[in-house]
């Protein structure tokens, strides 16, 4: 009994510690205040107001940043899901010349840190005229090697008999993929989608480099370079809260895919 109480206590204490920063964020966003006049407990709720949010919505850059984030997130999410699915199928089930070589090349490239590619990509995108264009953040993210591995691994576990049966009924490759593999491997494809969402929505490094015009910032860069410099903690936290809501909702609805995805990716 005592150990059980201790367990509950530890769990709720740690849970509270993990939630507290988020709680402070949301409560601060409801307070009109400036950075300088803060006391440590200013965020405790009394006299809440939505003025910080109203301020943000009057600021046309802010809505533009959200819109930019949506564009550079949604397109890669669906594209990565599609390519992870179909490439997963190709590498799990099709036989063709060069399959092993291509697969191992992909494997090797995963070891290259993305920060290594940023300088040549910046030079390349300058030549393409992609600086301050959505393409710079969308096109390189259209498919991701990691997602292909994840789905391939999942599809290898699907029994062969299923597609043999479908082929007997005259289904072609794409139909086999669409009618059998895609639905059965959907958990892994959804995992790819959720991870793509989080990594693109939260990305700071790449847009910081490719987007130099304030109008083209995604919300991460907008928050980091403009809102946090205004010196008003309430407004900064209102922006943080709004930028956090989409990831929070995705997480709430697809939590299973995040945690299963992490397990699948690491361990068999």
């Amino acid at each position, binding site marked *: 009994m005592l150990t059980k109480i201790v367990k509950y206590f530890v*769990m709720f204490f740690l849970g509270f510690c993990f939630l507290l920063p988020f709680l*402070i964020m949301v409560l601060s966003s409801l307070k009109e205040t400036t950075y300088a006049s803060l006391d440590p407990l200013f965020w405790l709720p009394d006299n809440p107001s939505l003025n910080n949010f109203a301020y943000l919505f009057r600021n046309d850059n802010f809505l533009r940043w959200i819109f930019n984030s949506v564009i550079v997130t949604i397109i890669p999410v669906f594209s990565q899901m599609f390519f992870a699915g179909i490439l997963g199928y190709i590498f799990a089930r*099709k036989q*063709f010349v060069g399959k092993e070589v291509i697969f191992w090349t992909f494997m090797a490239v995963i070891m290259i840190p993305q920060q290594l590619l940023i*300088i040549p990509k910046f*030079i390349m995108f300058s030549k393409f005229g992609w600086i301050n264009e959505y393409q710079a953040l969308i096109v390189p993210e259209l498919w991701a090697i990691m997602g292909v591995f994840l789905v391939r691994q999942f599809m290898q576990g699907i029994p062969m008999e299923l597609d043999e049966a479908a082929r007997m009924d005259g289904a072609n490759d794409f139909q086999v993929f669409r009618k059998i593999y895609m639905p059965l491997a959907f958990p892994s494809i959804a995992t790819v989608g959720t991870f793509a969402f989080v990594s693109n929505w939260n990305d*700071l490094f790449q847009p910081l480099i490719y987007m130099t015009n304030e109008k083209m910032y995604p919300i991460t860069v907008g928050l*980091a370079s403009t809102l946090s410099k205004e010196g008003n903690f309430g407004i900064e936290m209102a922006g943080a809260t709004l930028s956090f809501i989409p990831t929070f909702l*995705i997480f709430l609805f697809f939590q299973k895919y995040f945690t299963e995805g992490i*397990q699948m990716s690491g361990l068999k």
Partner: protein
Amino acid sequence: MEKVLVNQNEMTLDNEVKVKRPLKQRIKDEWRKNALVYIILVPVLAHFLVFQVIPFVYSFILTFLNYRIIGVSEFVGLRNWTQLFKDDIAWKSIWNTILFSIYYIVPTMALGLILALIIKSGIHFTKLIKGVFFLPVVTSFVVVAGIWEWLFSGTESGFINYLLSFLGINTQLFLSDSKQALIVLAGLSIFKVSGSTMIYYFAGLQSIPKEMYEAAKIDGASSFKSFWMITFPLLKPIHFYVLIITTIGSFQIFDSAYLLTSGGPNFSTSTIVYYLYSIGFTNLNFSYAAVLSYVLFAIILVISLIQRKYFGNDQSMY
């Protein structure tokens, strides 16, 4: 594109030696069988070439150039590489990154394991709390860093200083103190990442057979003892895997150094990637930044190779 041409050449050879069917027929059959493969793989490989392979090679070439944004770049041999050995800040950044890893890796693993044990302990509400522990993982650095900056402000009104005052500890400078700043950044990363190490450990704990604990119980082992004698050693592959991925992650740390301290005070939080960023995009010295990015690559390559050696190939890649 090239790949496909090569494939077709090989096919023709095959065709002449073994199958005495006309080439046209052979191609047609292959197309019927693998059309989907070619339709998908050709653009994907072209994309791969343009956005992965060419930048990788070009980055290496850059290290031997004096790259000019306007005008002609000249070949300078190893000058950028020798600059690295004379550059104290570069070494300081490498050292800071190692120091960051030391502050960050073991606590992240330990906290992740503790969280996993809590989730696995079979009490109520664990599902909900698991979500809470995981929440920082999906939250952007920008959001977490914004809160962190306020929590750790180095004045009396800072929240953490306020809490410390109850313990009788004086006001700390935190981010403005060159000895503490890196620890505060490590704290942020521990908060942000331990939820994902929890998931790895949780999966590991589930794979330990229940019978082992029952046997230990019969032998009269306390739960503390059975943790150190059974759980901890059996998690060895997970420890190793988590160690590798957190190490790789720690060498790529950038966001918090950029957001909270801009590498300061006195370069005490300048990490490899932050320094690379400031050389490349503040000083616009692309060639030297490319050298730094290869230093990062070399470190990560060594870690990955160690991982491969101990883990084999297929399951451990990411």
